[in-house]
């Protein structure tokens, strides 16, 4: 697990480079969700550049599409496209690497960016895979601020109605959105009870930046039958450097030269920690 944790910090460094070079991005959520993505792509999901072109792979929807920089870093590490290309081209004029997921790129199934879309789409994929009697599983990552969208709850209702035990949703519960605390903007708690009352199996991951705990939660989700599972991954927005941790203003802040130096120093130390 230590290697995956270190990998997550290394990929955070790629994200910071992407954002500084591209002069934009959603750094806070990239940092909070990185461990979830690393766990999914390097431990949990059956998806590779090779099987992605076939019907035999798990599905992933990045519903919080603005955290695309984290997804790009993970997909590049996974071999879907060259790391150097995305670092150089992200957000540049005419680039394929735009600021939200786009399925013209290898490794990305659905375009996202408008919040609240991912869960219904994932429900559709899970229903279709059930119809196909396939073993493929469906994963969707949502932001917490996104949960104010009504379509999320339409999707939540239908996932339970269709007993989609091949569907696992993750909430990147970093408790901050662009205007401040999620509980001040539009109170979400008690999320556990809300989803449970909708018919979901809910797992609280008390440290959603702890890969070992995430793996245990995904293992639990796999054996749940007859209902969908939700992981509430309690994460830290801006995870990786005190410069940006738990600061709403870092939702889409681009680091200054000074901030960049400190952040990269902090991330590097953790990426190389013995």
């Amino acid at each position, binding site marked *: 697990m230590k290697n995956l944790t270190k990998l997550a910090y290394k990929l955070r460094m790629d994200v910071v480079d992407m954002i500084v070079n591209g002069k934009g991005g959603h750094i806070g959520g990239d940092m909070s969700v990185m461990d979830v993505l690393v766990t999914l792509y390097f431990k949990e999901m059956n998806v590779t550049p090779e099987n992605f072109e076939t*019907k035999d792979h798990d*599905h992933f*929807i990045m519903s919080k599409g603005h955290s695309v920089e984290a997804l790009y870093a993970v997909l590049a590490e996974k071999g879907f496209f060259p790391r150097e290309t995305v670092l150089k081209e992200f957000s540049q004029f005419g680039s394929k690497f735009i600021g939200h997921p786009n*399925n013209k790129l290898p490794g990305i*199934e*659905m*375009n*996202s*960016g*408008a919040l*609240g*879309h991912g*869960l*219904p*789409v*994932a*429900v*559709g*994929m*899970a*229903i*279709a*895979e059930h*119809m*196909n009697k396939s073993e493929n599983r469906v994963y969707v990552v949502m932001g917490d601020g996104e949960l104010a969208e*009504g*379509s999320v709850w*339409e*999707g939540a*209702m*239908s996932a339970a*109605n269709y007993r989609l035990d091949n569907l696992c949703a993750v909430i990147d519960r970093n408790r901050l959105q662009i205007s401040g605390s999620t509980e001040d903007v539009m109170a979400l708690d008690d999320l556990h009870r809300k989803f449970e009352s909708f018919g979901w199996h809910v797992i609280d991951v008390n440290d959603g930046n702890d890969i070992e705990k995430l793996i245990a939660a995904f293992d639990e989700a796999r054996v749940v039958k007859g209902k969908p599972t939700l992981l509430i991954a309690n994460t830290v927005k801006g995870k990786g450097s005190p410069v940006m941790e738990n600061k709403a203003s870092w939702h889409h802040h681009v680091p200054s030269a000074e901030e960049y130096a400190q952040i990269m120093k902090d991330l590097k130390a953790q990426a190389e920690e013995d």
Partner: protein
Amino acid sequence: MANIANKQMICEVLMNAAKTDKDIVVLCSDSRGSASATPFANAFPEQFVEVGIAEQDLVGIAAGMARVGKRTFPMSPACFIAARSYEQCKVDVAYSHTNVKLIGISGGVSYGALGMSHHSAQDIACMSSIPGMRVYLPSDCNQTKKLMEVLVKDNEPAYIRVGRNAVDPVYSEDDVPFVMDKATFVTKGTDVAIIACGEMVLYAKQAAELLKKDGISATVLDMYCIKPFDKESVIEACKNVKAVISVEEHSPIGGLGSMVAQVVSENCPKKCVTMALPDAPVITGSSKEVFAYYKLTGDGIAAKAKELLHG
């Protein structure tokens, strides 16, 4: 075959196709009855998905299923599928390029006295302006059959709007001129071009018959394919006539009239008149009463043609 509503014909084509294509899936938002999809739901329960009254979920689920290889046909009142789930149509269907055929039933003012909440007078404008979204308004059940037989096999997103009730056919069952994405010339004339879509094509045809009695020769073009818009046929219909009338069950803003005027003004400039619903909640009444009030009838179109030609 007896004359049936276009939505019922859609269901028949889907049932026929679903016998051999197990990837065809119909989805409804508590709308199976109004969509005439109950026979499909009963005959193919494994290929039918009910989502309840949740149109955003309806389209999102349809898109997700399509991404995994299904051919999905969400069927819901046009007023809801084209408005409540507009962003899903834009992002999950068109932008993500999923094989979803959005079926807008009981379109236009089909719901008559139920009022503006249930009318879809904006769907041509909003759906046509989405990149990658095709838009079709078939005129009768025979043309609907031809259109759907193509759409059940192809892999591109589309929005299809049909009305609620059976309408008199424009074409006879055994003679339906149809080329995919090419508008159909119902008549060819030399004085005036009447370009219509959906249920208005029948009235345009009736207008041409009335005008003929008065010695006026009219072209009637059935513009069932709103997008891709068949510019060539519009130019062919309009280049040698003295005036152009477009007729649609839609707002006068951003619909067929706007598209016709754009093509005519660029290619063969002349007087174009848009006959449409008003940019306002329509008067209370059945759809036929509403059409009559706004002169969207054979008589009304013929009178407008004479006014244009003779001042």
